[in-house]
């Protein structure tokens, strides 16, 4: 990913996060606005109720006036029914109105004046009725004509109008607020929608950008993998070829080295045969003409030549053994390994039996700690490896303590690990890797051997898809760990065939 892409990614991410924050704030604001709107609406309803109550007071008073007039004109008590009813209701209605005005925050001081005006008017009406009941109709009509009733009614109406005006003004104000709040709500919702759209767009864009980056990375990875496989295949091929070349080289070299050795040894034998004749001649000369035989001749025939021949012999014998070992190793390397089910326990028991005499002679004990796995591998190779490790364990025990050899199996990193544990003389740290090299040995050279066994073991273990490892402390003992897979890996058939058909 380039820098600009990274920056773009960061900016997109930042903007998206900001969008979410704005959206959250908008949500909170909208909830608050909804509450506001509801309270405005409630307030508008409350003012409406005040107006209704106000009108009811006026209507009741007018009912009372109408009833009284009817009674004055007709003196029919039936007309008094609406008057009485209004007279009974008005105090409650006034009280309700006063409560509503107080609750709504209206002009509470105007209410006692309204009440007083209504009560005065009602008293005036009552006075007229009382005069009629007393039979003084003239006085009652005179009271109406006096105009005081109209005056009182106008006072009440003025009060009622005042309440109506103030309430109406409040209602208008609140309606306007309601309207504004509604508009705000709408704008907020629209803004919210817009922000949602923007955030969605940003998120989508970022996701698409990331997906593209991811795809690009995946493609690059695939490409790299393909290249890697190709390289591994090439490298494996050249390693195989190199290995084959080394095997062939070892074979040819050891084969051709043996030819001159046959001559060296054969003609040494000829020399030995010849020296017998020379020695006979010298002995005759010593008997017949002692003056001819000098000390020099006597030394040459009696000591120098036999000694030289002896060294030539021992050296060629040793060389022959080494060449034989290389040949055997190279032949082993060319042998095709074949997988078959091998029960490790049975194989170890067989080896243990064949080691019986050596173990007895050394006074040592070999213990097989079950369970052991059954592997699909090359039986002969496994037998050679374990046989070699057990041989070594017995061979290099410490005479100072009774020998204890233990074999056990366990799992390690998907492989089978077989430990051969001994309490023998051990191997110094500096020799831990050397012992696996050809012709290299460790410790006092008091046992026969050419330094081939462990080199062979390692070569075999690696060919079988495993390895061999050593943990040891000088003077305490060693643990050789053989690592092997469940199943022998398939051999490279081409290489195997080439080696198989190679002429000797």
């Amino acid at each position, binding site marked *: 990913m380039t820098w600009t892409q990274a920056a773009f990614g960061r900016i997109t991410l930042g903007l998206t996060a900001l969008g979410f924050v704005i959206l959250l704030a908008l949500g909170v604001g909208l909830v608050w606005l909804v509450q506001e709107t509801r309270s405005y609406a409630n307030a508008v309803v409350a003012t409406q109720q005040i107006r209704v109550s106000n009108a009811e007071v006026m209507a009741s008073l007018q009912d009372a006036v109408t009833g009284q007039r009817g009674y004055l004109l007709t003196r029919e008590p039936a007309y008094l029914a609406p008057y009485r009813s209004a007279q009974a209701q008005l105090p409650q209605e006034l009280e309700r109105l006063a409560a509503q005005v107080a609750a709504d925050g209206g002009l509470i001081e105007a209410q006692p004046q309204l009440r007083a005006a209504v009560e005065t008017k009602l008293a005036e009406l009552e006075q007229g009725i009382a005069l009629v009941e007393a039979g003084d109709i003239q006085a009652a009509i005179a009271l109406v004509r006096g105009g005081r009733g109209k005056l009182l009614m106008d006072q009440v109406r003025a009060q009622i109008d005042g309440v109506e005006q103030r309430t109406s003004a409040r209602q208008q104000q609140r309606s306007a607020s309601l309207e504004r709040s509604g508009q705000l709500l709408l704008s907020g919702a629209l803004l919210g929608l817009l922000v949602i759209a923007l955030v969605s767009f940003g998120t989508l864009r970022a996701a698409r950008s990331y997906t593209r980056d991811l795809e690009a990375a995946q493609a690059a990875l695939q490409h790299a993998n393909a290249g890697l496989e190709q390289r591994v295949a090439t490298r494996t091929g050249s390693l195989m070829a190199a290995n084959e070349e080394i095997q062939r080289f070892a074979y040819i070299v050891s*084969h051709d080295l043996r030819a001159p050795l046959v001559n060296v040894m*054969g003609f040494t034998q000829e020399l030995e045969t010849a020296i017998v004749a020379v020695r006979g001649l010298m002995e005759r000369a010593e008997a017949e003409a002692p003056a001819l035989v000098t000390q020099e001749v006597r030394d040459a025939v009696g000591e120098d030549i036999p000694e030289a021949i002896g060294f030539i012999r021992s050296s060629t014998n040793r060389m022959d053994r080494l060449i034989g070992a290389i040949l055997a190793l190279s032949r082993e390397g060319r042998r095709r390994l074949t997988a078959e089910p091998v029960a490790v326990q049975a194989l170890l028991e067989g080896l243990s039996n064949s080691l019986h005499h050596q173990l007895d002679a050394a006074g040592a004990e070999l213990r097989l700690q079950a369970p052991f796995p059954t592997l699909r591998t090359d039986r002969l190779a496994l037998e050679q490896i374990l046989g070699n490790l057990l041989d070594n364990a017995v061979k290099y025990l410490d005479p100072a303590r009774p020998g204890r050899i233990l074999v056990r199996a366990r799992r390690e990193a998907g492989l089978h690990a077989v430990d051969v544990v001994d309490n023998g003389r051990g191997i110094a740290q500096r020799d831990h890797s050397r012992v696996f090299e050809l012709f290299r040995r460790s410790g006092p050279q008091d046992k026969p051997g050419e330094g081939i066994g462990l080199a062979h073991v390692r070569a075999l273990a690696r060919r079988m898809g495993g390895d061999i490892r050593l943990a040891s402390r000088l003077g305490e003992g060693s643990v050789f760990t053989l690592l092997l897979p469940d199943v022998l890996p398939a051999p490279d058939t081409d290489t195997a065939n080439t080696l198989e058909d190679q002429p000797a």
Partner: protein
Amino acid sequence: MNVSAQAVSIVMIEDDEGHARLIEKNLKRAGVYNDVLHLASGTAAVEHLFGPQRQAGAPVLVLLDLNLPDMSGIDILARLKADAELRLAPVIVLTTTDDDREIRRCYELGCSVYITKPVNYETFAQAVRQLGLFLAVIQVPPTAP
């Protein structure tokens, strides 16, 4: 043709002069006095055995080294065993290796004896002596007249 009167001659195909000399000496020492013809290369051997001047009907024994510089002894062995006349001639393979596969191959092709050239010369002399005994036995070859 009186076959029994004719002594077997030994054809030794060996590129290493030293080995050839040692073989000859030890044959004599083991009491084998048949004629020994030494051929130092595969080409010379093929020329002698299959060339125009070959002596038809003469009984031969072939001592064959497998590791020749110009061709494989196995090829010569195969040609010998494919030849109508020479396929009856005993072939003794002498070589420096004791490779199982190689030995098996030689016996499959029909060699009579396979001897590994030993470094320890005593065993070699013994082997050659046994060979001499063997040569004495087959000195009257069952060649068809």
